[in-house]
């Protein structure tokens, strides 16, 4: 009985589904990041409603981690046929590899999203004083994103390497 339940839970497919979930939680980072930046943006726009557009640009930047997470989650779903309603049977190894593939972007996404949100928030403070320097604020914010991009790349290469 127990082995049956264990087999039911610990098979390749559930592991791959776990990978999808892990990749998608990168959105936590983006939610936090966009939220932090949004708080700063509200403060700045309260002073000068004309800065709405610029603040919005900066606020959007930490949103990408969620997209990267979605990207990997979607790719894993495609690979295991979860979207067509005709899932493939995966071995434990395949499932585990796909699960691992979700970890880099899932984990890095959370922390880099939060960090990027803080940088974006200070970038919004920057444009409240010097709106002409928005590009610098954006570049500082993009510096953080580099690590999310690298994690995305590794997640993607791991996903590539799994043959199903």
């Amino acid at each position, binding site marked *: 009985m127990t082995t049956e339940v264990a087999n039911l839970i610990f098979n390749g497919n559930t592991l791959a589904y776990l990978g999808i979930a892990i990749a998608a939680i990168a959105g936590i980072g983006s939610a936090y990041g966009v939220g932090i930046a949004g708080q700063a943006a509200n403060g700045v726009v309260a002073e000068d409603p004309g800065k709405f557009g610029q603040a919005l640009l900066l606020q959007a930047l930490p949103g990408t981690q969620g997209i990267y997470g979605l990207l990997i989650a979607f790719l894993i779903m495609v690979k295991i046929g979860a979207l067509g309603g005709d899932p493939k049977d995966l071995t434990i190894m395949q499932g585990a590899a796909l699960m691992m593939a979700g970890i880099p972007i899932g984990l890095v996404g959370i922390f880099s999203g939060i960090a990027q949100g803080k940088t974006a928030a200070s970038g919004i403070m920057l444009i409240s004083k010097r709106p002409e320097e928005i590009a610098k604020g*954006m570049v500082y914010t993009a510096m953080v994103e580099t690590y999310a991009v690298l994690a995305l790349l590794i997640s*993607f290469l791991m996903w590539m390497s799994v043959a199903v």
Partner: protein
Amino acid sequence: MSIARMEKLTVIGLSKDRDSLMEELMRLGVVQITAQDAKLTDDEWRELVAADGNEEAVAKWEGQISRVAQAIETLQKYSDMKKPLIRTRLAVRQRDFDRVMDREVEIRKKADHVLSLSDQLTEVKNRINRAETQKLSLLPWKDYDLSLSLTETKTVRVVLGAIPAASDPEGFRSELEEKAPDTESELVGSDKDQHYFALFLLKAEEEKANEVLRDFSFSRIAFPEFEGMVSQCIESCEKETEELLQQESELIKLIKTEEQYEPDLEFLHDGLVMKRDRQKIRSRLLKTESVFYLEGWVPRMAVDRVEMLLRVKECWYEAVEARKGEETPVLLLNNAFNSPFESVTRLYALPDSRGLDPTPFFSFFYALFFGMMLSDAAYGLIITIATLIIKKKFRLEGMMKKMISMFFYCGIATIFWGVMFGGYFGDLITVVADTFFGKEVVIQPLWFNPLEDPMTLLIFSFILGTIHLFLGMGLSAYMSIKDGRPLDALFDVGFWYLLLVGLVMFLCGKMAGLLGPVPTNIGMWMAVIGAVGILLTGGRDKKGFGRITGGLGSLYNITSYLSDVLSYSRLLALGLATGVISTVFNTLGSLAGGGVLGMFAMLIAFVVGHTYNLAINSLGSFVHSCRLQYVEFFGKFYESGGEAFDPFSENTKYIQILREEK
């Protein structure tokens, strides 16, 4: 190409010609007049000259400008006319401008009229506020059925007031009854803040009653401005508000009837701005009793025109080239393809006037990287067409114009990479053909699909990055040689070229077996020579032990080159992001299957999804393409810190006066 050469202009002329010369210089708009504060503290000069300037006139024009600006603002606020998406200056000929300015007195009257309407409107709004506040203060007393004018009789004083909501009204009344038995109290009403009481105090008991009032923090409320019953007062407040609202809408209507004069006001505004600027610039001039003195910078290509003007005005002048190493204002000059990318350079910081304008070196890479990161032909087409429409529809100037032109080129690059990688709204065509027509249509990429062969694109990205970086290092070497330090160029760039190229050759030969043994060995020796060279020369600025550690430190920089190259992996990653997110939305749209409902779902997913994807990913491509220039490329050589060339010109807000080229 690159940074315009500047000449230093010195002019001495007769004071009587000053105003007309200033007017002509403003029209030319090519001379940056510099402040001469240093000369005023210089002993040799101080005895001869004094600062020119006419603060009084400047203040006078400032005052008028702010009035006209306020009138324009009022008209814009209440006008029904549609505001354009992008505000541009109106181009007019001098004749037409003068014709409008002939009516200056009339236009000024209009401005005053609009301002007085606006003042009346403010007044009416204030009165509305006051009436509303009064009504609010009366509302708790609406059940009080005595006249507000009645405040005392011979023996009784009428006191209105309130105790905080937290106090117990019954307790208050019983306490009052106990201490002042002949006092009547009536609870008129309560709200969430207070209980409102009307008290009829026997004057003889007043002191005792006052103690109770103090204990309960009773606050007296008086209505000196009202007479009669409360309900009547409330009514009259409401009536007043209504009348005032009527007046308000009439005033707004009146303001609206003036809206056709807004363009005239804009002409007046800019006319005044030019007058002010002509007075303001005088603070940068020096004067004696009969002559004035000015210094400034002129781009060399415009020197002829300025000299011609100065000869006509019979001024003494001298235009000399900037001394070697002297800092001049920076004006970037580039050809039609490169100049839009000056906006990227400007967003970072202008180059040092003695340095190098990086724009022509990175503009091609900028568009290339942007295109690779967006890499969808349909998106590229949208950007290209949108920028073309904006350029056609609006008369853009300055940074805005440059930015839009830059995105035009970036759009074209995006189309190019989209075709190469086979992205047309992601895989929209395949999905639509499959879902609605049951056919299999795949548009083959011209080169390859990055999703199927990401390693190739990753390596390609690294190669592009290496070329980009090597170009930056090459520029650094070029600048060293230009400054007469060829050895620095060899030590700081040459050895690195040797080391990096050698290392790549060696690794390609050893690990991947791409090269034969001879090139592999050559590579190894190149790398060794480079590394030894760096080790020996890296610490040459330092002394003693520092020379050795300095060399080691320099060699350790190899990690930074590694991370620089790896940074270009974003070209692949962001390109994939665009493609996969498109696919996500297309798949979402196809989930409802074929048929009318399916088409509806597809349409929604298409519009919402691709708008979002285009917006977020073009933002990403813009930012990351900037980053690759700013951090990786500029980091290798760029010296920034120049001051922008800011000529004395017609710096107007609404109108641009066109001049016929002579």
